[in-house]
């Protein structure tokens, strides 16, 4: 079951196309990475899902139903450009934002208490936002995003502005929210976050979707049949089943080589072949990193 179905969405502004015929499915209960270079159209898509703007054509289903104003309270949105009322007290502000999301004053109060204890920020209630540091403001804003326990949480660069300790805290919260059944959409440039957290990804480039699916499957598709080996001894450049792409001498005298394996041979065959020739210290398959995949996918798209 998909919580969000984006079907053939196109959005045009007066002088450029933000999204062109984009279709994406976001399964329930996953962490979904929405990737793409700056200006690719990610924010436009997020704004459409948030009903801040509407698509020119195409449709979006939320939980199987076309997007409508009732869904607003089921979405939590943390925009990339963070912002709070500077001259308002933390408590009042959070209460206000929660009520705008449809909570009653009492519900909001109860939930806020839990979060204030969880984040150990009880003393902040009567402080003005402008008196908080940037990291503290981010925490407040994160609370406001998830307070109403939305089914779908959209986080645009959620870790920017956090120190490593707070970033970990937020990461754990995100994982906990996923455990509880929320779906999370990440929009980010940080590939290590994607690597670590995302189950599914979609890559948007130049207003078109160029790639999407489960992260595992995409990595599989982007495998290049190359292996690395660290060894002592001598290997020939060419062999019936493999080809050495590059090699270098490591500091301790060992050599490290990247080897491309013939499509019909297995890793076992390669290992057997190598064992007979050199002394092996380490061996493994080169799994493409998300940032490799990102670069490759983006560069493969022909210039418009």
């Amino acid at each position, binding site marked *: 079951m998909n919580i969000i179905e984006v079907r053939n969405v196109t959005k045009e502004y007066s002088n450029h196309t933000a999204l062109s015929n984009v279709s994406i499915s976001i399964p329930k209960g996953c962490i979904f990475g929405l990737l793409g270079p700056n200006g690719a159209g990610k924010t436009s898509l997020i704004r459409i899902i*948030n009903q801040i703007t509407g698509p020119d054509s195409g449709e979006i289903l939320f939980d199987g139903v076309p997007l409508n*104003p009732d869904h607003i309270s089921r979405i939590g949105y943390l925009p990339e450009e963070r912002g709070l*009322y500077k001259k308002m007290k933390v408590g009042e502000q959070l209460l206000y934002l929660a009520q*705008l999301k449809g909570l009653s004053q009492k519900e909001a109060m109860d939930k806020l208490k839990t979060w204030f204890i969880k984040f150990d920020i009880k003393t902040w209630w009567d402080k003005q936002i402008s008196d908080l540091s940037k990291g503290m403001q981010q925490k407040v804003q994160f609370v406001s995003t998830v307070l109403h326990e939305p089914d779908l949480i959209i986080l645009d660069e959620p870790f920017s502005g956090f120190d490593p300790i707070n970033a970990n805290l937020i990461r754990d919260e995100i994982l906990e929210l996923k455990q509880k059944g929320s779906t999370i959409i990440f929009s980010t440039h940080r590939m290590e976050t994607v690597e670590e957290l995302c189950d599914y990804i979609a890559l948007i480039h130049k207003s078109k979707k160029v790639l999407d699916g489960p992260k595992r499957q995409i990595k599989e598709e982007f495998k290049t049949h190359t292996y690395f080996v660290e060894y002592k001894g001598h290997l020939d450049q060419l062999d019936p089943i493999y080809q050495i792409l590059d090699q270098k001498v490591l500091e301790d005298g060992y050599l490290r080589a990247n080897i491309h394996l013939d499509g019909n041979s297995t890793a076992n065959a390669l290992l057997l072949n190598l064992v007979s020739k050199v002394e092996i210290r380490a061996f493994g398959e080169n799994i493409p990193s998300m940032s490799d995949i990102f670069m490759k996918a983006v560069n493969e798209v022909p210039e418009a």
Partner: protein
Amino acid sequence: MRNIYLVLRREYLVRVKKKSFLVMTLLGPLLFVGFYAAVIWVAVGSVDTKTVQVLDESGLFKKEFKDSEALKFEFTDSSLDSAKAAFQKGDANALVYIPANVIKAPKSVRIYAAKNVSMDLKSEIEKVIEKEIEDIKLAEAGITHKILEDSRVNVNSETISLSDGGEKTSSSGAATVIGGICAFLIYMSVFIYGTQVMRGITEEKTSRIVEVIISSVKPFQLMLGKIIGVALVGLTQFVLWILLTTALTSATSAILSNNMSKQSAQVAKEMEKAQVANQAMQGNAADNPVGEILGAVSSLNIPLILGCFLFYYLGGYLLYSALFGAVGAAVDNDADTQQFMLPITLPIIFSFVFAQFVLRDPDGTLAFWTSIIPFTSPIIMMVRIPFGVPAWELVLSMVLLILGFMGTTWIAARIYRVGILMYGKKVSYKELVKWIFYK
């Protein structure tokens, strides 16, 4: 609706809780009452008796210089030189010398004083002498005092407005004052609260909170909530001003009259005397100007004026604050608002200027058209209402004003919804127009 209410409540509370609101609310009536108190204080407190010595060689003025609260006259019969010497030793404030031939040579009157003589004192003394000489000369010419008094009439016309019911005594003076005050209040409040709406929107935009808010609330709801919230702040301020001013004024007058019951009793007596004299001279008690103003005010239709004031305050404010709001949404910071402000502020300023002419001619062509057109009607119609306006004109003007602010709100909402998400871009008029017709 719930969202509009939530936004409205926040906008209202944030502003009402501000220190500046409290200061303005208290300061307004205090300034007013302070002014009022100062006037009373000066009237009561400055009574500082001055002694004037009079050396009257002609012997004509003995009865004419009457002691008053401010002046005490002492008469001396010594020669001028010894009087001068005595004056320098004594503590009298001035010495008046009237020679024997004063009727033939009025310019020979001299006032001696240690310091310069105040204009008041000088004119007071001159007035007494002039009047006596005049009387004497007229009597010589055969005109009696009686004829003289009959010839002094006080013309004070009464305007009577002929309306459906019948004759109503009105006073163009009172109408002018009330019309002027209402127009000024509307002028000020449109400016003050309109710019508050604009500031609020720019603030939301620059602090980037707008994106969070409009993921929960429709831009139109956010704009409307803000406009209505600020309107209520204005109403609250007006109501508090009226209540506080009334309370403070009555308290002040009570305290003042208590503290200085003695002095004020004297003042009252003085005033009574003056009034009696006045009335005797005019021979008609109803000519008393205080009574006239009170009568005129009560002849005005106060409920109608108050009702219209509220309507035109709200209408004018809604019409303009929507436009101010659109400007706030189109720019990135306060400094950039200037280029778009002019076309909005011009009609407001023009209305205020026109108001001065309309006060003089409340039924003219200019008055008619400017009180019908929505952009000027909130100010101009308020000027005209105390003078009486035909019902159909009032209704037409109100309907057009309602249509007017619906129109500006529609335009503003369209600019607003695009503008609030547009960062870091200098916008031109051409673009604003494009936004209006944006799908």
